[in-house]
């Protein structure tokens, strides 16, 4: 604490810094909720698909698996490229 002076608290309590800190906290909260939600639901989908594929004839299996994997990949790409701030200017 000795390293941090009055000047720091003046800046830290400025509306600008407070806003940036809030935005940062919200971003992290939102990101990690979304991430864990994604990881868990994707794991569930894989399990579900595998169970269904088990009942299919051998050739049909790899075809349907590739179909499923392709859709997951498209979903992931869409997630990455969702409209960013700059797209609204």
């Amino acid at each position, binding site marked *: 604490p000795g390293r941090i002076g009055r000047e720091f608290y003046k800046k830290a309590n400025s509306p600008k810094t407070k806003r940036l800190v809030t935005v940062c906290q919200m971003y992290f909260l939102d990101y*990690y909720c979304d991430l864990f939600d994604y990881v868990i639901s994707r794991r569930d989908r894989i399990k579900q698909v595998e169970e269904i594929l088990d009942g299919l004839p051998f050739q049909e299996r790899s075809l349907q698996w590739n179909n499923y994997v392709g859709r997951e990949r498209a979903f992931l790409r869409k997630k990455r490229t969702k409209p960013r701030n700059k797209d609204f200017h």
Partner: protein
Amino acid sequence: MSSFLQSHFNSSAIPTIRSTRTFRRNPDLSPTKFQQDQQQDQQQQQQQAYYQQELHSASSIPGQRQVSSHKEIRQYAEQTLGSGSALAQAVKLPKGEDVNEWLAVHVVNFYNQLNMLYGTVTEFCSPSTCPRMIATQEYEYLWQDPMNRRKPPVSMSAPGYVEALMTWIQGFLDDDSVFPTKMGVPFPRQFPALVRTIMKRLFRVYAHMYCHHFDEINELGLQTHLNTSLKHFVLFCREFQLLSPKDYGPMDELVSRMLDDDGKSK
């Protein structure tokens, strides 16, 4: 291949980027670690001589933070570290997923997280508080102008370096032929190498924040966020072998500690 990728990232130049030319090490401060490289070229020797000179003058600059020991950084961080086993699961490539697609999502994520975290300390990280992009007094990161590779890497202020770095990365993110947005368009061949270079440079922003702004981040109440972000970053790098121990520089010990703890909790 896009002109942007060609002009900003030449995959044959990767060894150059990896070499010690992008950071300078001060032999005085780490006599046991510093090993004289016999093949060291003249330019590097000149650079080191220059750095030593600079260091002596820099020590008189007020406001240059001196969190310089590994132990100190580690103590700071350990107070707030949570369990990483959920993160360790989350970094794994989902069954059947394309590796490049997975790398791309994560590069965007770490880029955003660092923008957010560094954004909160911009008031405290200025050309006068941080005239050089350093992490402890042992490491300085130099910037090489991507448009002009013949120019030697230059010393920049920390905010100048971070801005140049983020703009450089944003250029790739906006380029459809590097980070494709259309369905079915593949990633370029050099993509994994580019990801390694981007991650290596992004890590330097963590290193600077830990070594020179941790007190402030702590006071702002963002230490958990910074630690979570770094832990996620290093777990991801380990999973896909993106960085080597020397890329962690002054944070090497903290990083291996983070990875060890994760090993125990599993």
